[in-house]
């Protein structure tokens, strides 16, 4: 076996693309949020990049993708030792690519999967804006990653019971990533409670161009997420790529169509949200279904998610940036879609029959069981973790902090300091240095003088 440079280049690239998704998500969420909590929202994503990368290398990868010598227990969890601490012993190891005589350095596969772990945890933060203590977030992230993400990834992709026994399919993470994160987001949001003033006040997006750019970066990175999940640059990766583009485009149209009909106006927030809903929904299915089914999936996911984000007003839970309405609902639609349209004509790994390419419920019930299991498990553990944090009083910030803005209270910084005024030579407040003076400047520094303006 030797390293195929083309496949390795493709997976290196895909890993970089998936990494980029988390800053893209930070921008998407940051723009959707009110400005006084933008930085906290972005910090929840950035802290995941920092924390989860290291934890993944230390123990996540071996527990999720290592092989446990106890065959029975291997359905539940991977190896405790195989890749522990990312030893150098396997630095030259190659990950065999099924159906080819070549491999990819195992390190790259580990890096690729690392990026998935990062963004899955970060996705949850969207329902928690403006009121979760940052320290509480860090503890939650570590806990949920360890107790939920790692085993679920093993169940689905690492040789565990969902992939190996149940035979449910998940090409790039509909169940492992989106249902998983969306369900957790609901669990924590319910324990955390509503933002003060919600839903009476308009907590509208503070920077819509950021939302759109964030969606654009997510879309770009998602090609690595989806087409990269094939691990090789072949025809299935190509189909995954095309399906990703078509479903996302169709979902953008679907969401805007709902807005146009219902509100009379399609919005850019809607177009961006629709794109994300499409990306979510096609994720599990992209390597298994034909293009026309992807277009249909996109339209349905876009329209349904556009309607689903209103549910929080009806049921009164404050899923601030609609993680449930988009990721949870979109993930479910995509997962079930496999049961409807998967075909071995697209990917030979499809062995059970789908409803429309085989007239059977055989694949559909497997998808249902897998999705439902992850929904329940993730929701329960997330809610329990949140209750524990609540008990030890590291869950919610004080009312004063929430009204004044969590950026100030938990991070001591504000997102912007710039010019409202059109065509001015710099805004008056900024020129005036109203933004504060250095608190700890030493004597020497103080000697510096202002000049007359």
């Amino acid at each position, binding site marked *: 076996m030797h390293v195929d440079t083309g496949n390795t280049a493709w997976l290196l690239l895909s890993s970089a693309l998936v990494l980029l998704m988390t800053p893209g998500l930070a921008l998407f969420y940051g723009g959707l949020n009110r400005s006084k909590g933008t930085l906290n929202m972005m910090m929840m994503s950035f802290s995941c990049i920092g924390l989860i990368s290291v934890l993944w290398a230390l123990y996540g990868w071996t527990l999720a993708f290592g092989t446990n010598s106890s065959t029975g227990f291997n359905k539940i969890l991977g190896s405790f030792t195989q890749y522990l601490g990312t030893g150098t012993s396997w630095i030259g190891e190659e990950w065999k690519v099924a159906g080819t005589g070549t491999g990819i350095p195992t390190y790259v596969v580990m890096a690729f999967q690392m990026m998935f772990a990062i963004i899955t945890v970060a996705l949850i933060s969207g329902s928690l804006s403006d009121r979760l203590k940052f320290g509480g977030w860090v503890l939650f992230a570590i806990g949920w990653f360890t107790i939920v993400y790692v085993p679920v990834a093993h169940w689905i992709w690492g040789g565990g019971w969902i992939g190996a026994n149940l035979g449910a399919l998940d090409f790039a993470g509909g169940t492992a990533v989106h249902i998983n994160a969306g369900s957790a987001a609901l669990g924590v949001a319910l324990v955390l409670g509503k933002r003060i003033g919600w839903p009476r006040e308009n907590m509208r997006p503070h920077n819509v161009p950021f939302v759109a750019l964030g969606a654009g970066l997510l879309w770009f990175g998602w090609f690595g997420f989806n087409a990269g999940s094939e691990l090789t640059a072949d025809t299935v990766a190509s189909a995954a790529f095309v399906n990703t583009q078509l479903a996302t485009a169709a979902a953008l149209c679907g969401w805007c169509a709902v807005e146009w009909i219902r509100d009379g106006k399609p919005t850019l927030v809607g177009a961006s949200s629709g794109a994300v809903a499409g990306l979510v929904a096609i994720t599990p299915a992209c390597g298994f279904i034909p293009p026309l089914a992807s277009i249909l999936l996109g339209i349905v996911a876009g329209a349904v998610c556009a309607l689903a984000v209103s549910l929080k007003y009806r049921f009164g839970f404050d899923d601030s940036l609609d993680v449930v309405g988009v990721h949870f609902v979109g993930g479910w639609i995509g997962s079930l879609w496999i049961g409807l349209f998967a075909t071995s004509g697209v990917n030979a790994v499809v062995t059970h029959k789908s409803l429309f390419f085989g007239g059977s419920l055989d694949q559909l019930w497997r998808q249902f069981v897998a999705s439902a299991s992850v929904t329940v498990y993730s929701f329960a553990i997330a809610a329990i973790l949140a209750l524990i944090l609540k008990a030890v009083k590291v869950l919610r910030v004080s009312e004063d902090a929430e*009204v*004044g803005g969590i950026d*100030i209270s938990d*991070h*001591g*910084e*504000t997102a912007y300091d710039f010019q409202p005024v059109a065509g001015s030579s710099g805004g008056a*407040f900024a020129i005036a240095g*109203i*933004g*504060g*003076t*250095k*608190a*700890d400047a030493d004597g020497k520094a103080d000697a510096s003088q202002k000049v007359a303006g």
Partner: protein
Amino acid sequence: MKLVTAVIKPYQLDAVKEALHALGVTGLTVSEVQGYGRQKGHTEVYRGAEYTVEFLPKIKVEVVTDEIDVDKIVDAVVTSARTGKIGDGKVWVTAVEEVVRVRTGERGLDAL
């Protein structure tokens, strides 16, 4: 006529607006200001440098009104803007000699 000017905490604007509305005030003008007073600002941190922000965001509300209503209006503002914490703000009254509605050219009380 009189001009009632109130500098209040931003979060209280809604309450003030509703209190004035209840009194039959049909119009008002608000702007963003920064206040300096007894209430202390907060500290921000950038790459290890700490900065004290002394000015705090406030909302200024201006209402031109009939002389007769001034006291009621001042009371309504004071009551609705109050949180009891330091920094609640000030209300002051000045005399207005003439008011005109731009659209119609009406003057005096008719302009309100």
